[in-house]
């Protein structure tokens, strides 16, 4: 007979071993699936790695995909620290991109040094507000934020659709529903072959790490996230903390949207997020909400997506297989947390049974 008991003695090393084996298990489970499709899993995996890191160009591409993921994951991790289940990153990214695009389209004559910061600020404010609305109701009435933030995603999506097919439709696109491209001064400049979004991402990782662990505001977020009652007891303004933290969370997601619109797409479209808002939920959870780990996990996930496009060409395996792989990895890691929190022991019943 198996018996479980809670454990508190799991060391960091053990935890790493458990999580790594979970990821390996997930990879082998997907391998079975790939074999069922009639491919050699090892060569598929290898070519995924090849596709992600095989050349300087591919590495740049992988990092390009990792940037919005990192920024959005940092944002989400802040919300999750508060146990605020913000799954509205998708919408916050869209609204951030919307805010940036508003300035890009309407102030085309401003020089880059003014326009780009303006766009960044607008994206943070728009994304932040998109997050702060559900946060306000959660703080005030304990309204369920999970579904609220999710509904906000759909509203943002419909809003962008409306803009793309309506007021912001490019008159020069011969009736094709697209928003005009950004002028050169509204595009993020490149640095070492990649738009400067990567510098922003690196800076944000460092700032976030310090903010959460070494500032008073970060400390408050950790306390309130553990228990709102404790926060209240310690004299903190819990409602305000919730609202501004989620504003920051949404603001970071919004900034990810600006980086995508300005650095990569050079325009706004309904497909701006490419599911980053959802993937970022996985990555921040897998990283246990720790900023440095987020960077690593996000690059690995970006590699998986980038590798996914590659195997689509090489093996005709649909790109959605990468999405399944992501889901599987998270399933296994979620399951493995159990072995970090609980101890399984086998009790020998034979003796007892024999006496009967």
């Amino acid at each position, binding site marked *: *007979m198996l*018996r479980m*008991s809670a*454990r*508190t*003695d799991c060391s960091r090393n053990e935890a790493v071993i458990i999580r790594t084996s979970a990821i390996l298990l997930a990879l082998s489970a997907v391998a079975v699936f790939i074999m069922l499709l009639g491919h050699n899993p090892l060569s598929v995996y290898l070519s995924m790695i090849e596709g992600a890191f095989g050349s300087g160009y591919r590495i740049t591409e992988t990092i390009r995909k990792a940037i919005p993921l990192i920024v959005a994951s940092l944002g989400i991790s802040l919300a999750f620290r508060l146990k605020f289940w913000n799954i509205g990153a998708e919408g916050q990214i869209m609204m951030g991109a919307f805010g940036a695009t508003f300035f890009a389209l309407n102030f085309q004559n401003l020089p880059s040094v003014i326009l780009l910061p303006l766009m960044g600020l607008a994206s943070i404010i728009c994304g932040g507000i998109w997050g702060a609305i559900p946060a306000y109701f959660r703080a005030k009435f304990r309204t369920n934020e999970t579904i609220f933030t999710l509904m906000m995603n759909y509203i943002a999506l419909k809003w962008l659709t409306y803009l793309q097919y309506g007021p912001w439709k490019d008159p020069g696109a011969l009736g094709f529903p697209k928003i005009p491209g950004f002028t050169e001064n509204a595009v993020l400049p490149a640095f070492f072959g990649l738009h400067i979004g990567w510098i922003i991402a690196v800076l944000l990782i460092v700032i976030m790490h*310090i903010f959460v662990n*070494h*500032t*008073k*505001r*970060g*400390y408050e977020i*950790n*306390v309130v996230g*553990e*228990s709102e*009652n*404790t926060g*209240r*007891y*310690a*004299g*903190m303004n819990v409602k305000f903390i919730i609202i501004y933290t989620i504003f920051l969370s949404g603001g970071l997601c919004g900034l990810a949207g600006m980086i995508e619109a300005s650095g990569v797409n050079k325009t706004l479209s309904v497909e701006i997020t490419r599911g980053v808002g959802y993937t970022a939920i996985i990555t921040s959870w897998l990283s246990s909400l720790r900023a440095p780990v987020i960077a690593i996990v996000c690059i690995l996930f970006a590699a998986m997506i980038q590798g996914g496009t590659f195997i689509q060409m090489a093996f005709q395996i649909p790109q959605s297989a990468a999405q399944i792989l992501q889901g599987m990895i998270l399933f296994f890691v979620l399951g493995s947390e159990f072995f970090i929190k609980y101890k399984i022991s086998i*009790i020998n019943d034979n003796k*007892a049974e024999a*006496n*009967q």
Partner: protein
Amino acid sequence: MVNISKSFGEIKANDNITFSVNYGEIYALLGENGAGKSTLVNMLSGVYTPDSGEIYVHDKKLRFSSPGDSIGSGIGMIHQHFKLIEIMTAAENIIIGQKRSFIIHRKKLKKTINSISEKYGFKTDPDKYIYDMSVGEKQSVEILKVLYRGADILILDEPTAVLTPQETEKLFTILKKMKEQGCAVIIITHKLHEVMEISDRVTVLRRGEVAGTVNTSETNPKELTAMMVGKAVDLSIDRPAILKDEVMLEVKDLSLIDRDGIKKLNRVSFNVKAGEILGIAGVAGSGQKELCESIQGLERRKRGEILFRGEDIARLTPRAIFERGLRISFIPEDRLGMGLVPTMNIVDNVIMKDYYLQKSLFLDREPARERAEHIVKMLNVHTPGIYHPVNQLSGGNIQKVLLGREIDANPDFLVTAYPTRGLDIGSSHLIYDELNRQKMKGVGVIYVGEDLNVLLSLCDRIMVLFEGRVIGTVDASTATKEDIGFMMLGGKEC
């Protein structure tokens, strides 16, 4: 039960325990908090599985791997914390987990319940919702649940902990009736006089081991105490005299209505002198929590005045109170859900209340580290280190950390809610001593408690709350438990 052992992690909760109970007797398990009583009976009820040892019922060896197995063999457990579903009626609660029929026949069910009630002398309305019930009524439902299943071995875990003396009296009458009907009744308690009053035999547990089994008629409280604690200890609590006659805190006409529109406090007025311990008694949920939080500035929806040295603080936030130089410390009932952050270490918990006074944007943990070390030394906290998460400490040590932080802040006034709940006698007395030390320093203390014996010997005056109203305030040196119990049920001062 033969040779039962059980460990949690490295702590041995039960070590080689053997005892037996006969039908038609009331059997008491006596021991301090933490002696392993609850663990022992939880194994009997299938909640825990023993590491080793055997359980026999009706001379048949049984293995319980779940509560269902235990119920099947006629054992009924009444848990200390009721296992009832608030939004269901008594009748629904009684039949949870039953296997008699697929469709629920409400009328037939009501009849059965009423006939059981009559047999044992309960007065329970099967259609009443649990959330409308008093603690005593809830307990009746718990017992009915067990009887409805036809259990003939009843286990009651600390059944009187939350009852008034009058309710306890009623419960004992019912237990005696069960005994007459041939049931085996096991009652777990740490109250000596109850053992003497009701039980036929008693087993004393000490630190997870059997300290002895005796017939109640052949023993006395003194002998039992010695068995409980291992050596003769001084169980008396000091009550130093109040030093000066100066009112420190005065509450006038305090009322509070909660979010659901329910009146939690109703025109409460009282005062506390400097160097006085004011006890607050009342059945659970009479407004104690709301009162404590109001004084702290945590409750905002209140009317009335709270004068602290003449200054009205009723409308101030905790920080505003602090900034005026008024030091009010608070030890809340919910230690890990309110007083401390369970996953954080001692240092981060110590810094919790004054971190915001630091000027810099960054958090300096250095002063807190020194204070944490000081607290650990002062109160003799058993911990692997000050960077150890508090939820991995034992209950007593968790409370010491909390108390240490609150006292280390040099308070003028101290509000404590059930500070010794769940602690063993040694730790409890350490806390009583610390409260008295604060008292001698001229600190005003509010002590919300449930054990009337402690309230009567520690406090100077005792105020009784009932449904958010003050029923009366008595002098602790002259009042009796019966007086207070009567008032706790809403009876006027006699």
